C-alpha cells in the first residue's frame, strides 16, 4: 500500500523497516528531520506531501502559482517546526494538514488562528513506541474508511475540508438542501467512527 512518491525513498526505508513497522509511513522520516535534521528524510517528506499540499491549496481557491509558493512555505514550516511533531498525538498527514490549513487561513482570510492552550505534559515525555504504532494504525484505518465511503458522502467531507466552503455555500454549489448536507456529513462521520471501533 505504501506510496513511494518520495525521491530515493527506498534507501532508508530498508534501514528503518525492521526497527518499526511498515504501517507507519513518514513517521520515521519526520522523526529523522526532527531529531537529526536529516535532509534526505526531509526530501522524501517533500516528495510525498508537497504535491498533496499544493493540490489541497488549489482546491481552497488559490491559483497554481500561489499554491506552489504556499506549499513551499508549508514544507519549510515542517522543517522549522519539526521539534513540535509528536508521533503519539498525530500522524504525519494530520500534522502537515494542520500546517497547510493554517497557511490557508493566513493567506486567504488574512487572519491568525487562535490555538488551544497546550496540555501540561507529565514527566513521562519519552514516547511509547506502542502508542506511536497504535496511532498510525488508526490513521491508516481512517484513510481506508474514508476511501470506502459512498462517493457522495466522501465528496462532501472533502468539500468541507478543502473547499473553504461553509455548509450553506456547499448547499448553493450542489443544489442540495442544507439539512441534507448536514445529515450526509453526520452520516459519513458516523461511518468513519464506526469503522474505527
Amino acid at each position, binding site marked *: 500500500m505504501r506510496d513511494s512518491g518520495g525521491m530515493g525513498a527506498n534507501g532508508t526505508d530498508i534501514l528503518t523497516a525492521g526497527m518499526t513497522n511498515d504501517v507507519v509511513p513518514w513517521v520515521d522520516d519526520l522523526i529523522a528531520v526532527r531529531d537529526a535534521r536529516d535532509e534526505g528524510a526531509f526530501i522524501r517528506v517533500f516528495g510525498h506531501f508537497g*504535491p*498533496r499540499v499544493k493540490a489541497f491549496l488549489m482546491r481552497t481557491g488559490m491559483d497554481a502559482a500561489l499554491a506552489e509558493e504556499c506549499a513551499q512555505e508549508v514544507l519549510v514550516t515542517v522543517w522549522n517546526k519539526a521539534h513540535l511533531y509528536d508521533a503519539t*498525538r498525530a500522524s504525519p498527514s*494530520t500534522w*502537515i494538514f494542520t500546517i497547510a490549513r493554517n497557511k490557508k487561513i493566513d493567506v486567504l*482570510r488574512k487572519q491568525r488562528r*487562535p490555538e488551544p492552550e497546550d496540555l501540561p505534559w507529565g514527566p513521562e515525555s519519552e514516547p511509547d513506541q506502542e502508542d506511536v504504532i497504535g496511532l498510525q494504525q488508526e490513521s491508516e484505518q481512517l484513510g481506508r474508511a474514508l*476511501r470506502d465511503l459512498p462517493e457522495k458522502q466522501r465528496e462532501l467531507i472533502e468539500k*468541507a475540508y478543502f473547499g473553504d466552503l461553509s455548509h450553506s455555500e456547499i448547499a448553493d454549489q450542489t443544489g442540495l438542501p442544507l439539512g441534507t448536507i448536514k445529515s450526509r456529513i453526520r452520516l459519513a462521520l458516523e461511518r468513519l467512527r464506526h469503522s474505527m471501533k
Partner: protein
Amino acid sequence: MTVKHHLTDDLLMAYSAGDLPEAVNLIVATHISLCDECRAALGSYDAVGGAVLDTCTTVEMSKASLNTVLDMIHAQDTLAQDKPVSTSIKDDVLPAPLIDYVGGGLENVRWRSAGMGVKQAILPTSKDATGRLLYIPAGTAIPDHGHSGLELTLVLKGAFQDEGGYFGRGDIEVASEDLNHTPVADISEDCICLAVTDAPLKFKGLVPRIAQPFLGI
C-alpha cells in the same frame, strides 16, 4: 472541573477545516483549552483532515521547488530556532488563547461600562464576527434577546443560568436564531464570559434597544 455544555460537531469540524471567523476560532480554542472531551474530538476531526490530505489527488510541484525550499531552510537554519510561541503568563481566569488577545492577564482587560453594572471589552479580531469579554455582577440579568445569527457564550468565572440550563466555568452555550434567552449571572459571584456573535443581537424591550448602540452588541 467537569464541563457539561460542549461545542457542536459542526463547530468542531469547521474549526478543524479552518472555515470559521477569527472570533469564533478564538472561542473554540478557548473552550478546548478547558475541555478535554472537545480536545479529543478535535483530534479526530484533524485526523479526518489528514486522511483527506493523504487520499486526495496530487498536483506536481515545479521543478525548481525542491531547491527553493532547501535554500530557504539553509538560510533559516542559521537563524535562531523558533521563538517560543506560548506566553509565559498564567492567569486563573483567562486561558492562553485569551491572554494572547487581551495582551496579558485579567488585570490587563480594558473594561468599558455597558450599563447596569455590566462591563465589556471587545477583542481585536477580524470584523466577520465579534468577540467580547463580559463582566456581569452577581445576580444581574442580561436583557431578553434573540439573534439574527449565532451567539456563543463561554463562562470563564462564576456561572449563569438561562432557558438552556446552568453554565459554569468551561461551559459553552451555542444559541442560534430560534433561542430567545435571558441569561442571569449566578448570585454567588460575579460572572466573566467570552461572548461571540456573528450578527447583531435583537433585544425585545424598548430600553435595551436604546442601549444597544452603546453596548455595541
